[in-house]
């Protein structure tokens, strides 16, 4: 450990150290497991990413008591992919590792390289042709920082848009206002295939949804405040708050995003509603775009956590969410 000038050294640290120690320790074991012989390469594979880890961290580590449920992203993505006729291979974490985005941007290049080499081997072994991810950071990392020659890396919204996902007419027909936060990783930072139009077009396909834009959007969209899961403090929370205030001024019903990091930190601030006075609360739901789209489909409702603001049909009906102690 070298001594660094405090001004340029790691003045900010990682607020979820246990999770990242666990994630980093994955890279120590890089023995490729014996996958049973794959005769035919999988056409479609879905990589959920670290969302289950986030979920556990956010739910059980007492760092955040919020209602955000990342597992819904997984359920919704699979449901949506099935709705457009895709039965993906699930690249879950029993034999894949974290994609390494956070480790790369936290300066742990060696950890990232081990994870990248391991994951690349697994993906090549399975003969995957289309790798679908529901995470903006995973999309960027697989597309730019990995060298997956011959593997088509897609974000789930791109696949849904291209396969022509359509929604049944809404049952209640009540008009809703929806806004979308562009994640930095899948938009501005992508020199190829940035995802601007696909989520917006999918939202427009929902009949009763009106898409409104935040104060800054597309390439100018302001960051949600936290990247690579580092330094959660009042300053970064202020950025998140300013972004959520923009949505509040627009009087929207849903604030959507395509990045679990944005969802985590929006959800964290949203959770603080419970201690705010009545007039300062955010009245909209903050959910992932896959969750929003899956709710609009027919079939059983996705979501295994009923505590995600129970009065979801009309967030403005009651001021205080149920379950707030």
């Amino acid at each position, binding site marked *: 450990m*070298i001594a660094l000038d405090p001004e340029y050294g*790691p003045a900010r640290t990682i607020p979820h150290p246990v999770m990242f120690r666990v994630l980093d*320790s994955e890279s120590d074991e890089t023995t490729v497991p014996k996958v049973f012989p794959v005769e035919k390469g999988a056409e479609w594979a879905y990589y959920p990413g670290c969302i289950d880890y986030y979920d556990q961290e956010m739910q059980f580590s007492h760092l955040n008591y919020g209602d955000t449920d990342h597992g819904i992203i997984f359920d919704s993505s699979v449901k949506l992919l099935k709705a457009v006729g895709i039965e993906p291979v699930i690249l879950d974490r029993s034999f894949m590792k974290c994609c390494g985005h956070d480790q790369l941007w936290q*300066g*742990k290049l060696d950890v990232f390289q081990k994870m990248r080499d391991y994951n690349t081997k697994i993906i090549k072994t399975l003969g995957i042709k289309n790798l679908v991810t529901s995470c903006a950071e995973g999309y960027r990392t697989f597309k730019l920082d990995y060298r997956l020659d011959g593997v088509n890396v897609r974000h789930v919204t791109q696949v849904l848009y291209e396969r022509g996902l359509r929604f049944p007419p809404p049952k209640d027909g009540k008009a809703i206002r929806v806004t979308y936060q562009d994640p*930095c990783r899948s938009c501005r*930072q992508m020199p190829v295939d940035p995802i601007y139009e696909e989520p917006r077009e999918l939202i427009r396909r929902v009949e009763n949804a009106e898409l409104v834009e935040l104060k800054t959007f597309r390439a100018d969209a302001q960051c949600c405040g936290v*990247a690579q899961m580092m*330094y959660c403090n009042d300053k970064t929370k202020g*950025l998140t708050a300013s972004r959520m205030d923009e949505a509040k001024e627009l009087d929207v019903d849903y604030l959507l995003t395509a990045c679990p990091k944005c969802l985590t930190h929006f959800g964290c601030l949203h959770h603080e509603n419970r201690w705010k006075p009545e007039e300062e609360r955010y009245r909209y739901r903050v959910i992932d775009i896959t969750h929003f789209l899956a709710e609009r489909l027919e079939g059983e409702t996705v979501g295994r956590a009923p505590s995600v603001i129970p009065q979801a049909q009309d967030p403005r009906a009651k001021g205080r969410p149920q379950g707030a102690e």
Partner: protein
Amino acid sequence: MTLPMQTMKEGVYEERPGFPTQYGPDRTDYQPGVPFWPHEAYRDLVIVFVLMAILLFLSAAYTPEVGPAANPAIQPFIVPDWYLLFSWGLLKLADVLPTIVFTDPLGNLINMDAAFWGNMLTFPLVLVPLLLLPFIDRGRETRPAKAPVRTAVGVGFYLGFLFFSSLYATNDRILQSWPFIADDALKWMVIIPPILITFATYVGIRRLGFRDMYWWNVLLIGSAFAVVLLMSLWAFALGPWAADGMSPIDRLGTLGDQNAWPLTVFMVIVILYSAVLFYATAFLKERKAKEVVLAASVITFFAVVIAAKGFADWIFPATFSALKTIALYSNYFIALPLFALVTFYLGTRTPYSTYEYLLNECYQCGKCHTVCPVTKVEDDALGGLNLVYNTFKKQHDGVPLWTCLACDACSAVCPLDIKYSDYILEERSKVGAQGAAADGGRRYGE
């Protein structure tokens, strides 16, 4: 409907003094700087006239003495001053161009012979492009590295072409000193090396901007390999014995001869080396390719030295004809592998090694500071001036390395397209390699 972002852009930035309302080379509202024509041209003409007046006055008032008369019995070595050697060389080269004689519509006989081409080559070909350049190239980019085509053509033509044509001006002396060098070889050197210099310069400059030059490398190095291979076969077939009238097929039977052995060895070395360069460029990954090429270059160098020493001193001390053959085709056998090597290294150089060069493009417009979300909330960043510039200068700007969100808002507005987050990525990984990442680089259980 006017979007909020449009209102902000128009209202806040674009009406302010110094912020343009149009962008691109066709903008008419504001032209920074002073155009060359006519302002600079008028001023330069005045200076030229004053200098001419001084020279005319001096030559009239103080006429220099002329030296002794030339001795007609001695053949002089005719050569102009060094800065006009190129024109002398081009005059000598003019007879390679075809003589065209025709009658124009007015009935005049036009004779485009060597004298005509010599005149055309010496002045219009070299100087007219320079005179026309301000009118042809209307771009505002003055940095050579940002204008790859102009720079590559300039380097290839005005350095490569003029240097080798100057060299050809002394061809009689060269042929006198080294009789085994062919005059045709010198002529080809006026054509081939400048083209190669142009391509290599273009590849190198484009690589500065992180462009992927894979196919350029494969094409250039592959063609170099092909030419070396063909010329080797040609040299084998006609060889140093062309005067004896032996047919090429019979010649192949003499490969074991005392004369042909050194030639065989040198050709095989050069062909193998070019082939390794081509193979590494086309089929290996970048890092592996660099290792292979480096090893091959070192081995080739020592192999050539040992072979030359061995054939000259130990094995066949009197085999001059083989060396003569190699010298005849030296521009292929030496210059082409060398060109392939230079192109390979220019085309595969690690972009990060030039990253500070890209940051150095910053001209401190401060747009990045305006959009940076961190400077909006960090107390110590409120008085900051400029994100990219200050970071490059390693001055405190309130956004130290570990506070950046890497959201790339700065790159989105940067007029020079500086990717600040790439710089952050690189710097953090440097620190992380020393065990000082965000959490100290320690892992669970350590």
